[in-house]
């Protein structure tokens, strides 16, 4: 507990210090509110907007959750399939890498044209940003299975399935989690982008709306909420990792 506190307080002080400077400079240099609102202004706005914010945040959380779950599952599935069929892997792996050079933001309008403004195109956007880090991390984790343990399993007559479940999968778990952690933060970004392009709710939509009426203070609120959502997703996955990979001493040190 004490150690945790020792780690936490220096960045906390730094953040408070920066907020102080921000507050001071806005009043000192008389910066216009629509260019840079002061932290106190923003905080006040949170209170007046709270019910609307809550509604939009909830919509984004829901979209992120669904998209992240589907995207991660697709990533895991792709990794498992490509790992167990080497031919497919050598055929599709380069395409997979190539697919990441298409910026999601450019693809999103196209998806809207094809699939309309419902849930489906948004989930596709999030899936596209989520599956890749998971699939790549899992495949590299599976490929790095300890060769001594692998030949041990073969010698004692373990089937392919047993080797996968008892050796390769747990061995790849730390890699899988590092992929999922990246996907977790990407999923929030994916959801916001999807809401920008076509939606009538969610934090991304709210942000666009406020931008067009120069409510900079509310744009700041939206950004803070997005950051907090990302951090929360990351923290949840990190906790899960701690539980699932508790045997891993190297992780701790």
């Amino acid at each position, binding site marked *: 507990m004490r150690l945790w506190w020792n780690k936490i307080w220096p960045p906390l002080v730094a953040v408070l210090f920066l907020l102080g400077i921000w507050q001071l400079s806005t009043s000192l240099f008389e910066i216009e509110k629509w260019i840079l609102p002061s932290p106190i202004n923003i905080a006040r706005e949170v209170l007046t907007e709270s019910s609307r914010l809550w509604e939009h945040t909830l919509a984004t959380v829901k979209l992120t959750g669904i998209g992240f779950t589907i995207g991660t599952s697709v990533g895991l599935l792709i990794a498992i399939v490509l790992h167990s069929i080497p031919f497919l892997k050598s055929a599709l792996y380069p395409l997979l890498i190539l697919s990441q050079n298409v910026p999601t933001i450019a693809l999103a309008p196209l998806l809207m044209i094809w699939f309309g403004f419902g849930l489906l195109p948004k989930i596709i956007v999030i899936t596209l940003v989520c599956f890749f880090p998971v699939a790549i991390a899992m495949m590299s984790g599976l490929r790095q299975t*300890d060769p*001594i*343990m692998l*030949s*041990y*399993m*073969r*010698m*004692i*007559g*373990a089937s392919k399935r*047993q080797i996968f479940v*008892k*050796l390769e999968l*747990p*061995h790849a*778990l730390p890699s899988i989690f590092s992929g999922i952690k990246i996907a977790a933060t990407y999923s929030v970004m994916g959801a916001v982008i999807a809401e920008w392009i076509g939606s009538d709710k969610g934090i991304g939509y709210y942000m666009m709306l406020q931008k067009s009426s120069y409510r900079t203070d509310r744009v700041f609120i939206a950004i803070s909420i997005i950051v907090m959502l990302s951090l929360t997703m990351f923290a949840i996955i990190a906790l899960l990792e701690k539980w699932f*990979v508790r*045997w*891993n*001493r190297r992780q701790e040190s």
Partner: protein
Amino acid sequence: MLESPIQQYPNIRGEVTSVAPALKVTDIHKSFNRRQQGLPVLKGVSLTVEQGEFVSIVGPSGCGKSTLFHIVGGLVQPDSGKVWMNGHEVTGERGHISFMPQQPALFPWRTIEDNVILAQEVKGISKREARRDARKWIAKVGLSGFEEAYPHMLSGGMQQRASFLRALLSPEELMCLDEPFSALDALTRSDMQRWLLDIWEENRRSVLLITHNIEEALLLSNRIYVFSSRPGTVLQEIAVPFPRPRREEITEDPTFLALKRDLSNWMKEEQHKMQILR
């Protein structure tokens, strides 16, 4: 005509039985391809392990001992030659031996208890049943209190004991141990040898042990095969005459010392040949 693996064998007590040997390999040849060149590793190796017999292989490093194990375990296909177990041909088949690799190869995400039941699990024995057995044995090999510990919390000697126990608890009759103690310091090593001697004399499993420690081979084995340098062939087959149960004092017996000297000389010669070849 297929050669029959079931023959009349005198066992260690000199009685003739008609039980098929636990392991019989006949005329194994194997080369690896390396830089477009064949590297002959085993050249006509034949050996047997009778039921309940402790047999060792000693030979210079790089002479193909581990490769022979991989062939017996079905991991590597021999170029020619056959592997028989209990009278059945099993060349290239996996899952017929219990195996202890050169490195402990314990799974870091499994507790010690779950590690030692791994071979049973792979054989389809239920975890609950396997654990019941394991608890008793973990105490017997001096690991009690470490049932729930992860491998990295154990010393090298303790890890080797867990790895040995994993092989011992495997339902397969024949145990193949590949230099189980080579990574340990001298003191731990002689502890482990005495410990293995006691455990084996209680259980009398069929064992094939690879070692480059001559004293270890003499102390533990009924018979010893001496391998030549690469390509490996059987140079000598030595019966170790000491009765069971053995005590550590036999290491000071004149016969023991004479055997040790002979074996050392052969080994030195082979090691020397190996260096000239390089």
